[in-house]
């Protein structure tokens, strides 16, 4: 009896561990010819997972691009909880990864600690940077407010109720910079047109607003979108990773509002919602990640920052796809002009 029991429990545990192991050490799909120079790039995701259709996925795409272009080897580990960061950083160090890519603000401290303890290893962190810079870490950061402002201007031009809304996952700088830009864009539109379009969910002055306090709880995203629509918002930008998909479900159910995606082009990553996605504020971290990998390959890797901007194509807004008919040609032209003005510095977002 006792033995049987021990057997069952151990089997269950082994199964769970095996499953957990499968999911985290899976090599990417497709051929993996080991590179001649044997460069190995290893990514550690935050708790959103490699398929978050958002920045973990986009950074991973950068690594896959490098696999295709330069024949490097790509690997990833997915963090289930905050305690995994340090564990995974050590695991990759033992694997002799040539570049360890970590993703997100939340993993910032762990990456810093690992980089300082191992000055010979190379690190790059997506969506975070250090001041002062660390010699063996490249921070990839994005002036997302530039693209956010374009989205805000667009939203203000398209809204029928005169109210647009946004909410974030957690009040952290990489999230709120989207919201700052969005509000600025609406303000620019109001200045240019003398309108009074209102933004719900974010106050630039006090830096307070609406948050789901989670990047997993999609039901909460659903509820927040309904709450915003109840108060009259007809265009909503959720800056909360997959939680935004809960908002998309709510918007689709009501059928009288639109969504602005974040991080990647949601009309492509979530095609079932393409009919409600006005545009997306994209961070093209695949480009910046590839850039860092290339610097490792040609030996020019130096610690510091890589900044994605409208000017270098590191941030952008996605095409309007199915909703192009909602955007008058005049508005499209104004947004192009605003983009040029932001790049040239004629319009300041500060």
């Amino acid at each position, binding site marked *: *009896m006792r033995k*049987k*029991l021990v057997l*069952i*429990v151990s089997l*269950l*545990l082994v*199964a*769970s*561990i095996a*499953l*957990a192991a*499968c*999911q985290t050490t*899976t090599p990417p*799909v497709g051929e993996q010819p080991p590179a001649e120079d044997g460069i190995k790039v290893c990514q550690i995701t935050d*708790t959103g*997972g*490699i*398929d978050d259709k958002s920045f973990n996925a986009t950074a991973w795409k950068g690594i896959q691009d490098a696999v295709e272009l330069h024949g490097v080897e790509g690997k990833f580990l*997915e963090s*289930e909880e905050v305690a995994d960061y340090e564990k995974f950083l050590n695991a990759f160090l033992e694997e002799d990864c040539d570049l360890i890519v970590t993703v997100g603000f939340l993993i910032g401290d762990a990456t810093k600690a690992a980089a300082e303890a191992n000055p010979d290893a190379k690190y790059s962190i997506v969506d975070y940077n250090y001041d002062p810079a660390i010699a063996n870490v490249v921070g990839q950061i994005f002036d997302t407010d530039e693209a956010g402002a374009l989205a805000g201007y667009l939203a203000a031009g398209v809204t029928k109720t005169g109210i647009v809304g946004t*909410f974030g996952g957690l*009040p952290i700088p990489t999230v709120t910079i989207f919201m700052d830009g969005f509000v600025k864009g609406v303000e620019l539109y109001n200045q240019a047109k003398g309108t009074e379009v209102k933004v*719900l*969910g974010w*106050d630039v002055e*006090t830096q*307070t*607003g*609406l*948050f789901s*306090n*989670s990047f*997993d*709880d*999609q*039901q*909460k*995203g*659903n*509820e*927040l979108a*309904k*709450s*915003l*629509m*109840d*108060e009259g918002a007809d265009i909503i930008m959720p800056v909360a990773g*997959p939680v935004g*998909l*809960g908002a998309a*479900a709510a918007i689709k*159910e*009501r*059928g*009288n509002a639109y969504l602005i995606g974040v991080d990647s082009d949601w009309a492509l990553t979530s*095609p*079932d919602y393409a009919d409600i996605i006005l545009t997306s504020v994209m961070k093209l971290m695949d480009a910046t990640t590839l850039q860092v990998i290339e610097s490792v390959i040609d030996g020019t890797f130096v610690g510091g920052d890589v900044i994605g901007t409208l000017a270098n194509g590191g941030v952008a807004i996605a095409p309007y796809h199915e909703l192009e008919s909602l955007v008058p040609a005049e508005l499209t032209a104004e947004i192009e002009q605003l983009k040029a003005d932001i790049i040239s510095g004629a319009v300041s977002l500060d």
Partner: protein
Amino acid sequence: MTTSTNTIEHKVIHDVSPTRKLAIGISEVLIALLIFVVFALNVSGELTTRFVMTPGGINQGTMPDIVMPSQLTLFSLAGIVLAIGIFQLVKGFGKQTNLMVGIAGLFLMLAFLVWQAAGTSVNLAGMLSSAVLLAVPITLGAFSGILAERCGIVNISIEGMMLMASMTATIAGSLSKNIWVGLLGGIASSVLLALILGVLSIKFKVNQTISGTVINIFSAGMTGFISQKFLQMIPHLNQPTMFPRVPLPLLADIPLIGPILFNQNIFVYLMFIILIVLQVALFQTRWGLRFRSVGEHPKAADTLGIDVIKTRYIGVILSGVVAGIGGAFFTLGSVGRFDEGMTAGKGFIGLAAMIFGNWMPLGSLGAGLLFGFADSIGSKLSLLRSVIPPQFMAMAPYLITMIVLAGFIGKGQAPAAEGEPYEKE
């Protein structure tokens, strides 16, 4: 022995001790002062608060907006709460004490909203409607817990069961293109996990907390694995249709109540049906008495010829059925797709709601609604640019739970034999 202790504890619940009477009276007076000093005196006299009384996107059971002068309303609310507090201090409400605490708490929240929304409008009906939806998985989780614990099994694997059910429901629903098959698939997977829990804790007498934890870990790993390996790669596995909103004839036309309770999707109705069935079956039928006796004193039940083992298996399986419905809600009733970890701890919060509700179905529903309400009022306050930090609102329900568990409202009574494996002699 057990019965006599129970009656004594029941007395403790109803008889308000002098200290509690005083403490509650003082709290109520303080609430009144808070409404008066912080809220009412900080609002200028001419502002009005507009409550929208119909949730967005609904055209049945509409109701005109309510516009009230903010300051006057706050003064009256403070007055009423003050009267309650003074009466409590002087005479005491006796058995009605908890009800009066509840009313004072409700007025505090209302006053808070009136204050925050002074000079603008807030969709009160939308907030309540959201609260009901947010309460669904929490309440179903609590019901699932009640079914297991009332017959003596501690089920902390509700979270894992829900997670597994939400994923299976998505896959079954997407493959069959039939939403009901999806729901049944979700329930089946959750029942399977419940059976494992049953075998481990009834047959092999494993510590129930450990077997529950094992199931939670297993579910998280399994769903994560399948999600990454299959659901993300093959999108049509992850596109179930969703249960639409079904307005109930006539009931949906009642102003305010109709849109909030009777114009929702099937999960809300299932929640109420399970509530009624559970309340009646557990407390009004012979089956229920036997079921509960197994959770309170299995040896006595066995002596009377009740099959303890069988009853516990039935309890665990029913617990799995209800958790399965709760899990399917996430994908088929709320979001329409599965993503890792999307149950976000609701199964555990459900257990808290169960304890809060004193292992009673109706009480658990109340607790679930309170948690849902705290959640939805939190988002409305953020929208109104409240001075209260959103993190504080997010933790409010748990603070309330701790206050309740600490004995402010009365002592909870867990089934006496829960967590103890039954060994037949």
